[in-house]
């Protein structure tokens, strides 16, 4: 344990994965997070190890080998449905309980009204004092902040410039190029994968591996390749033609 905490501290200094806990609910949120990461890690490792183990254990040992038919098992199906159901329900109820706990300020909290203006924060104390851009809170007492915005509703700058449809600093440029490079990049990846698969299929066909009874790999490769084709059918006019007539 000591070694792990030293290691975590070393990672933490380079890569702040877990910020310092600065609120009373942070510990609970961290615990929920550890549960999520733990469940995910456990099943990812289990599934990947099982895939590799079965791939080796049940490999085809000679060319004429045909696999035995697989008989279903109701108890097995029930087990691997009910256990994940319970685990995910724990995620849901734990997360929901924490969320509602976070939303609910304590009953005895004193309310401070904060108004966000252009360009300052105005704080109104319950006793009537006002402050600008500073907040002094009573020591050892629970408080809650009621935050209001008085400006920029009409510009939809609230809840923030990132929720604007247009880019706040230019003429849609950043939004467009984010889409552009994500879309064309992913299409290029799909095409590189497709060219690889097609090359393998050509090689296999050249070696006479396909017959009138066995051609599904060709069929499926065709389906994949034309899926990429359809994506480009829509992307090409959207990225290069629409709005470019000027």
């Amino acid at each position, binding site marked *: 344990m000591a070694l792990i905490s030293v290691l975590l501290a070393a990672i933490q200094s380079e890569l702040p994965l877990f910020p310092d806990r600065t609120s009373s609910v942070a510990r609970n949120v961290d615990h929920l997070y550890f549960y999520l990461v733990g469940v995910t890690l456990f099943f990812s490792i289990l599934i990947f190890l099982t895939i590799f183990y079965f791939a080796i254990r049940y490999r085809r040992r000679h060319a004429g080998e045909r696999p035995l038919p697989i008989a279903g098992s109701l108890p097995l199906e029930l087990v691997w449905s009910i256990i994940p159901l319970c685990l995910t329900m724990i995620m849901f109820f734990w997360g929901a309980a924490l969320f509602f706990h976070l939303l609910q300020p304590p009953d005895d909290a004193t309310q401070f009204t904060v108004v966000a203006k252009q360009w300052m924060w105005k704080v109104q104390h319950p006793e009537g004092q006002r402050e600008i851009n500073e907040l002094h809170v009573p020591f050892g007492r629970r408080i809650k902040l009621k935050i209001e915005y008085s400006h920029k509703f*009409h510009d*939809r700058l609230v809840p923030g410039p990132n929720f604007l*449809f247009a880019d706040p600093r230019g003429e849609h440029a950043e939004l467009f190029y984010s889409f552009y490079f994500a879309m064309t990049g992913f299409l290029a990846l799909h095409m590189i994968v497709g060219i690889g698969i097609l090359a393998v299929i050509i090689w296999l066909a050249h070696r006479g591996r396909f017959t009138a009874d066995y051609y*599904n790999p060709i*069929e499926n490769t*065709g*389906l994949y390749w*034309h*899926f990429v*084709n*359809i994506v480009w*059918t*829509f992307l*090409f*006019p*959207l990225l290069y*033609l*629409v*709005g*470019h*007539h*000027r």
Partner: protein
Amino acid sequence: MNTSEHIVSPRLYVAVFLALMLGTAATVWVARFDLGQLNIVAAMAIAVTKATLVVPYFMHLRYGHKLTWVFAAAGVIWLVILIGLTMADILTRALG
């Protein structure tokens, strides 16, 4: 999973390919005119037409099992839900 017993003739493939090339040329041609909002409508109409050529012939849906049709339709319906709900947000923003 024999999706297709049907063998499509090269002649049909070439015909579909030429139709798709024609569609691409039409998309580029129509994009040269300023039609306002209709530009995107025209571009998408041509793209949908091209897709309805690719899916039945290149992807053999036309010769497939009826269950395959159901799955293809489910994909389209899902796409309509995704785009429809996104547009329901974007197009109503101006109403504020």
